[in-house]
């Protein structure tokens, strides 16, 4: 029995968020009258505090703790910082929306904090068990948040769908994990990698497990053919919650894909790359084509999200070519850059949908954006920037994200894949541009002035401008992603 007390220092941010979630819960229970604003303030303070702690404890080394179940590395730290940012922005945009619908109960902010904690655990997991725990923490909180509007039958239905399919996906993932464990005798990613490297594991069983793991991951990422829940949940959930689902969890999903596939099953890269290739092509094609037919902007953004995740997978699948790992770093950092820029764009896009909604009115349809230019030229311009960027028009951040991913794909020699991706994004440009056309060239139906709290206006403008400015100067963020991966891999 030689047990050493684990080093808590690398996990300081996780511990801080967990404690603050409990503090929030108790404080809002005892101070009911100011509970709502208190919960909001505490949640934002927690996210800011966690960001400071993460920056403070960040060093370029890879540190393992808690019996090697927890890994602290630069990739994880960077993703955690971005997750705090995305959640904080999501709370800020959504607060007025929730207050108008009497949904800004303290539990919402509490669940958002616990969801953040779940994502942090996912990002820092070095063990199947912690990865799964983090995933469940995040998913459970999200299911509850989707159903938060108890009066709405549509939200409840969306939550039910999300819950049942999410549970199924978790089951698939667990089954795959148990197979991998059976084959390698290890749940720790480095242990798995070593067992496969020394050919101690049976290949058939490994591949059997890999298939299930890929299916589970694909469900959580929401890629074709495991995408059925995405449009319904995006549409059915209250817009503030849709924003939460669409943004930060994508970063966490990127992180667990990296941890599982690259850190754990890198020796099987040839196999999972071909699976990813199918998922990516199907998502890009179906996402872009189905988005054209949508009239509901939340559904449209859901399909566009499917296509974007497909693009991100393109980066992940071009790491290893014929056993040559030269391109791996470039490919993975392009995927990470894509995930980051997608989150930035999606925050702004759903932020705009929230901005146009008000008490008793949901700006859900593309029609609701008609004539936005006459109602508010500034925010019409912001939306235009975001749509252009999502379509991949130069020189916005979305262009560089697509460009770097395609560069990786071409370097890996998959020319046809790059051609399909480009063709499909040209088709996809249609529905993004339609929103711009509706905003600028159609007469407004609804001429109510836009009123939103000052903090939302400022943040949304900053968000839109960031999409434009980072498009002009993408080098910094790109090299940050590359640097984080060099230090972690």
């Amino acid at each position, binding site marked *: 029995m030689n047990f050493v007390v684990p080093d808590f220092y690398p996990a300081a941010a996780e511990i801080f968020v967990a404690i603050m979630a409990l503090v929030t819960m108790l404080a809002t229970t005892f101070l009911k009258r100011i509970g709502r604003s208190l919960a909001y303030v505490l949640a934002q303070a927690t996210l800011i505090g966690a960001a400071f702690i993460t920056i403070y404890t960040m060093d370029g080394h890879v540190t393992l703790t808690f019996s090697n*179940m927890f890994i602290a590395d630069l990739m994880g730290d960077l993703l955690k910082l971005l997750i705090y940012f995305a959640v904080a922005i999501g709370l800020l945009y959504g607060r007025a929306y929730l207050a108008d619908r009497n949904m800004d109960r303290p539990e919402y902010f509490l*669940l958002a904090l616990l969801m953040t904690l779940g994502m942090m655990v996912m990002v820092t997991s070095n063990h199947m068990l912690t990865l799964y725990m983090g995933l469940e923490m995040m998913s459970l909180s999200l299911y509850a948040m989707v159903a*938060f509007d*108890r009066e709405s039958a549509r939200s409840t239905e969306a939550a039910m769908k999300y819950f049942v399919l999410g549970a199924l996906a978790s089951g698939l993932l667990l089954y795959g994990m148990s197979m991998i464990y059976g084959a390698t005798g290890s749940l720790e990613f480095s242990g798995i990698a070593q067992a496969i490297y020394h050919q101690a594991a*049976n290949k058939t*069983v490994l591949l059997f497990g890999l298939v299930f793991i890929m299916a589970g991951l694909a469900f959580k990422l929401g890629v074709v053919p495991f995408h059925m829940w995405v449009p319904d949940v995006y549409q059915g959930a209250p817009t503030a919650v849709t924003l939460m689902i669409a943004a930060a969890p994508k970063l966490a999903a990127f992180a667990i894909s990296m941890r599982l596939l690259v850190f754990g099953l890198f020796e099987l890269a040839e196999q999972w790359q071909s699976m990813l290739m199918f998922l990516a092509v199907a998502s890009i094609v179906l996402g872009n084509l189905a988005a054209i037919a949508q009239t509901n902007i939340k559904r449209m953004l859901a399909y566009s999200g499917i296509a974007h995740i497909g693009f991100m997978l393109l980066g992940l699948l071009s790491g290893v070519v014929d056993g040559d790992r030269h391109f791996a770093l470039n490919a993975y950092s392009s995927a990470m850059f894509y995930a980051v820029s997608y989150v930035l764009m999606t925050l702004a896009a759903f932020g705009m949908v929230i901005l146009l909604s008000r008490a008793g009115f949901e700006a859900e349809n593309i029609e609701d954006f008609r004539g936005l230019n006459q109602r508010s030229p500034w925010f019409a311009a912001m939306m235009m920037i975001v749509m252009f960027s999502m379509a991949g028009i130069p020189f916005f951040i979305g262009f560089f994200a697509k460009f770097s991913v395609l560069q990786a794909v071409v370097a890996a020699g998959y020319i046809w894949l790059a051609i399909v991706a480009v063709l499909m994004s040209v088709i996809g440009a249609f529905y993004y541009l339609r929103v711009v056309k509706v905003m600028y060239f159609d007469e407004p139906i609804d001429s109510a002035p836009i009123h939103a709290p000052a903090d939302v206006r400022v943040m949304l403008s900053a968000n839109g401008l960031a999409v434009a400015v980072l498009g002009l100067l993408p080098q910094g963020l790109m090299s940050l992603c590359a640097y984080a991966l060099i230090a972690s891999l």
Partner: protein
Amino acid sequence: MEFKTFVFYVFAAIMVFAALRVITARNPVHAALFLVLAFFSAGGIWMLLEAEFLAITLVLVYVGAVMVLFLFVIMMLDINVDRMRQGFWSYLPVGALIAILLVVEMVLVLGGRYFALDAMPEPPPAQAGYSNTREIGRLLYTDYVYPFELASLVLLIAMVAAVTLTLRKRKGLKSIDPEIQLSVKREDRVRLVNMPAEKE
């Protein structure tokens, strides 16, 4: 046949029978009770595998708590047995297909080379005085303390979610919020009025 093997087959037979009755029993309460029997037999099999702690936990937690709660729910709900049976034949093909697939997969996995009995040798029996409970406890609170704590947070999330999704304040109740009650000041209740003295 060794006595242990005989006991295993007894437990296994009871479990298979109980599991079959769970899905064939007409009365849902009977089905739940058969599930209890199945759990009990599973506990017996775990006991044979020298997993005493898990066996007892299974009986205590699943039989003692979960299933009792389940029975309560079944008895509270007014389930119409006939309506439940509607659509049995239309679901049968899909259900049968999935069942056959599962059986085939199980046979492939268990009968295949990789998970057959010779690929999984029997672990050496533990020495006398070896405490299963103690070993599980030691592992849970040392090596696995991080996922253990995370699991507690997952349970907390489940509680918060369940409460926030189902708790409704009933309207028209006359009870007073203790917080408001406690924060009452004298000025809220008593008003001192200055009046000039009057003669009768």
